[in-house]
């Protein structure tokens, strides 16, 4: 979490622009919001009206001994109370409803946006921080809403109405009570600022403490094996003490604020009585009923002021969250084709030519592909071998447009024309070019979903899923587990590593891509599963163009051609036997055991360490 961002508090000007942009998300739900806003004057009006009724009773009905009038007034009072309750409930509900619906949309938008961010973005951003921006930051907005921050508007209108009402009733007495306003202002400002600072420190230190605890418990075995218990405990206590100090200070300030508001409220009433007394006793303009009304007004005013500072703090937290969310939404996504555009690869049969391909991950980094040229004919199987860091995985990432910005040419033969790779929208490309990565990613759902991945055409047709499973010979194992509805658990924990592999292959079989880019996994599986995996790969290589980043000798042997990469260049190419006879790098790799560089090349989303 980037707590540091939070310390730079949003200026008022930027707060407006944050809000304006937020309105863009709120517009579809604006009916609720307008309804809520429309209730504000009603609520404020009722609040101002009630004490007037009291005043009337005290000044007119009671001295006149008018029991009927008093009863009518009492009923009027209850009606006003009821109206105020209903208006304020509708107001709160409408604003919350509009707000939550907006936040829900915003969360969805952030999620959809992050899904479409390019791989380079994922390289530079920890998934944890993306998660926290999608959930925690959005949740902070939600909390702000729940805390009734929108009522701050009501509060302001209400206080304004009350002050106006007081002025109309008696300007002099109002001015007398307003003498405490500067004191209030200073208190709210001073306490507000200090409390906000402390709240920030509290949340920061708490996050640090919790993070530390989670990490130490995750690595508790190391802590214990290396006798670090006391050091860890000391650090935990230190972090806790930091939190404790801030919390205690905040507590005292909070208590003082609370008490000051109460005290000042009583003080103001006393002040008013003191100054009004001569006028009341001397038959001046001030009546007892007026004092009665003023007492009521003043009590209404102090409640909201007490909460002002807290509300401001949550608003500030929300705007910091909003800023981070917008920052994420402003990251450019991968391009997408317009929905109605024709598929540029409809007639593509898998023919591809690569000419003088250069590629680097970072603009200031070294080239990882340095002038690669080769062709794939429709239906041809090309194997790519090379040491870790030779550029073989990068090749797959460029050909699927996971990473853009190659130099040179990659052209696809579509009928009589050719299409440059960079001109095909990524999602159109990936409908035809399927890359299977080393680490199989499985979703916490059933087998059917993990094969179809929710693609309607496949999901709607279980026979297609079964066919795919049987092609990769996973049907028996899956049937044994309980069929397509078998829940495979979080990250596939209910399956063996080999079965996971086979599921990933079934995804390919169900989709029948024109070009398959297969990054062979080297996870250690037992020999029986290994045989199954090999046979499944064999099936997948048939009837389509394939670029396989090979780790298995059995796979390499089946390839029509082998490209040997070293340092981002093709250093050898040809068939297995020819390359073995040549006794060059390829022969060396084969002798070292192709499958022996397992694990070192890391996970699919990250570029391999150079």
């Amino acid at each position: 979490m980037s707590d540091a961002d939070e310390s730079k508090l949003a200026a008022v000007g930027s707060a407006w622009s944050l809000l304006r942009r937020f309105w863009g998300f709120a517009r579809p739900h604006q009916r609720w919001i307008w309804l809520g806003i429309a209730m504000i004057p009603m609520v404020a009006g009722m609040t101002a009206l009630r004490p007037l009724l009291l005043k009337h009773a005290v000044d007119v009905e009671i001295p006149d001994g008018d029991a009927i009038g008093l009863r009518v007034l009492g009923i009027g009072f209850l009606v006003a109370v009821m109206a105020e309750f209903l208006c304020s409930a509708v107001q709160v509900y409408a604003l919350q409803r509009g707000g939550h619906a907006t936040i829900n949309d915003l969360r969805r938008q952030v999620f959809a946006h992050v899904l479409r961010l390019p791989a380079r973005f994922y390289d530079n951003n920890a998934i944890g921080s993306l998660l926290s921006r999608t959930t925690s930051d959005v949740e902070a907005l939600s909390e702000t809403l729940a805390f009734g921050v929108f009522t701050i508007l009501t509060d302001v209108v209400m206080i304004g109405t009350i002050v106006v009402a007081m002025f109309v009733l008696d300007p002099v007495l109002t001015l007398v009570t307003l003498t405490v306003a500067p004191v209030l202002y200073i208190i709210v400002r001073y306490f507000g600022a200090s409390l906000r600072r402390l709240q920030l420190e509290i949340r920061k230190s708490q996050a640090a403490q919790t993070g530390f605890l989670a990490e130490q418990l995750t690595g508790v075995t190391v802590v214990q094996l290396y006798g670090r218990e006391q050091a860890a405990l000391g650090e935990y206590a230190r972090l806790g003490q930091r939190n404790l100090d801030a919390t205690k200070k905040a507590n005292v300030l909070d208590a003082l604020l609370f008490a000051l508001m109460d005290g000042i409220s009583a003080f103001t009433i006393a002040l008013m009585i003191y100054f009004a007394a001569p006028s009341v006793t001397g038959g001046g303009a001030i009546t007892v009923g007026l004092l009665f009304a003023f007492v009521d007004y003043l009590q209404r005013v102090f409640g909201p002021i007490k909460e002002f500072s807290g509300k401001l703090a949550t608003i500030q937290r929300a705007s910091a969250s909003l800023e981070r969310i917008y920052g994420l939404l402003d990251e450019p996504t991968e391009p997408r084709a317009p929905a109605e555009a024709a598929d540029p690869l409809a007639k593509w049969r898998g023919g591809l030519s690569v000419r003088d391909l250069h590629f680097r991950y970072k603009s200031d980094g070294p080239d990882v592909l340095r002038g690669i040229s080769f062709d794939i004919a429709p239906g041809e199987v090309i194997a790519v071998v090379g040491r870790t860091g030779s550029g073989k995985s990068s090749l797959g990432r460029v050909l699927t447009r996971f990473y853009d910005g190659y130099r040179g040419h990659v052209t696809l033969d579509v009928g009589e024309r050719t299409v440059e790779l960079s001109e095909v929208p990524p999602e159109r490309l990936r409908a035809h070019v399927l890359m299977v990565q080393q680490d199989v990613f499985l979703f916490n759902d059933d087998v059917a979903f993990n094969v179809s991945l929710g693609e309607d055409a496949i999901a709607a047709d279980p026979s297609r899923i079964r066919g795919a499973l049987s092609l990769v010979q996973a049907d028996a194992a899956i049937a044994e587990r309980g069929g397509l509805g078998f829940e495979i658990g979080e990250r596939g924990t209910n399956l063996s590593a080999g079965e996971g592999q086979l599921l990933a292959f079934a995804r390919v079989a169900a989709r029948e891509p024109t070009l398959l880019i297969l990054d062979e996994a080297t996870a250690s599986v037992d020999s029986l599963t290994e045989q199954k995996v090999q046979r499944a790969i064999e099936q997948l290589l048939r009837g389509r163009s394939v670029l396989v980043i090979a780790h298995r000798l059995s796979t390499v042997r089946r390839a029509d051609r082998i490209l040997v990469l070293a340092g981002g260049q093709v250093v050898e190419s040809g068939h297995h036997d020819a390359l073995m006879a040549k006794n060059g790098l390829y022969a060396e790799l084969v002798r070292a055991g192709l499958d022996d560089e397992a694990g070192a090349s890391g996970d699919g989303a990250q570029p391999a360490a150079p």
Partner: protein
Amino acid sequence: MNAPLRFLGRYARRNLWPYTLGAIALLVTNYAVVRIPALMGDALNVLERAGADALSQSRGLAIELIVLALGVIGVRTASRALFFNPGREIEFRLGVDLFERLLGLQRPFFNRHKVGELVSVATNDTTAVRLLVGFAGLQVCNVVVAIPMHLWQMLRTDVWLTLWCLLPVVFGAAYMRWTVKRFFSMVRESMQLLAKLSDRVLEAYAGVGTIRAHAAEPATLRRFDERNDAYLALQLRMSAIRAFGMPVLAFSGLVGTGVVLWVGGNGVLAGQLGVGDLATFTALLVSLVGTLTALAWVLAAIGRGLIATDRVADLLHTPDELPPASHTLALTAPPRIELRDLSFTYEGASEPSLQHVDVDLAPGATLGIFGKTGSGKTTLVNLLTRIYTPPAGTIFVDGIDACTITLPSLREAMAVVPQTPFLFSTRLRDNITLRDANPRARRRGKDGAPPEPEPDDPRLDAVLRASCLVDDIANLPSGLDTVVGERGVMLSGGQRQRAALARALYRERPVLVLDDVLSAVDQGTEARLVAAIRALRAGHDRGLAPTTVIVSHRTSVLEHADEILVLDGGRVVERGTHESLLRQGGLYADTHAHQEGEP
């Protein structure tokens, strides 16, 4: 109910003074709080009657009111601070005590409990306990003191009016209590829904490569929508409660005010009441409703706090399941390590993971352990390092039963690299030397002054060379001072393994245990590492090299061991030196042939 309170009593005892003072301050505060409306009413009464000395009398009352108002600021602040701060201290002490207890518990415990669950006890539950002892404590005192005082003041003014205007408030309070209960169950549900939503988001982000490769964004979004919309639906139900349910109590207070106007107004007409009394009642009602609202929330906090206290107390009292220790190990030289007919079955497992293993490892010798995944290699290491407690009389260090040795002294003698390397989110340097787990404290030390230059550490340099980390470090943004781990730069699997290896080598202990630490390094590096580890052993300047246990599934790592055990299904199926095992032509020899090249 009694047990958690006794437990808390032990913690709260240290804060007896603040609580006592807080209680006194509270008493005074509440007196002032009910006195203020009464004075207000009196003043209005005086003014209404407009007697001869009305002016001086009312002004006198106003001044009394001012004094009281200023006084209430002090006592109210004191009462809240004195009650809340000890709660914070108790929360802090509970957290530290919990962590201390957890650090003393061993792997079997951590297998049964997820880290998230433990963190939640140490944070959320201690917070609930704090609310119980601070907030709830204050409110209970409030209820015992404030409500009776309010009632007393009201009854003193007028009994009938009190009963009348309390009628709606009693209903309001009962409704509030029910609403808060319902609300809390929704809060719990919403936390679960949010966690489920987060799971979906995390899953999608972690699997974004697969999603993208298969163009599965629409389905992923649909899966997200399911949970996002369920969460919204609950939020809206909560909003309805907030809007229509929560304000009912305050509403009932206003209805009470209406009753005051009606019934009380008639009382004034009948001459039984003064107008000021009406103001007293109105103000007291407002303050009473506030107290009742807080009470409704607090009753819920008490329930949750007691449950949380139970959980915290349970965790604090978890037995460490360690056998009683009678020996302290103080090794001056590498020890002899013996395994005698060691068999072990994990808790809840039906099959033993190790059966009848016998080893006699001479001081300074190297034992290699070879086997496939699941053959029992790691179990053996876990028992030797007492991550799991071995059966009594099976493992001996210099002739002492390992079960009887105090755990800290046993581990003090060892440098162990577990199978999965773990790096802390500190500087790489601190991860290896483990000298200072808190780089920030050191760096901040002198008012933002630049960090002190690290002293030369020849041992560290040697270890980094041996672990082949020198080149990797050169490529890190801040070299050895780069923060690594979860919250720092992510190292590759091989780099993590080598950093963990460096940590063990730096420790220089009489026993070295390496559990498959070279699995993610490529072959060339592996050969260099094996050579370096051997060289370190040979160059050990304090007498003998450490007694070493190396686990691997690769024969090339074990070549130089004095004895190699080949495990399969928990049994020793072959044993001997590298050469003798190759001659035997069994599992080891087969694997060796396969790993060395074409079969």
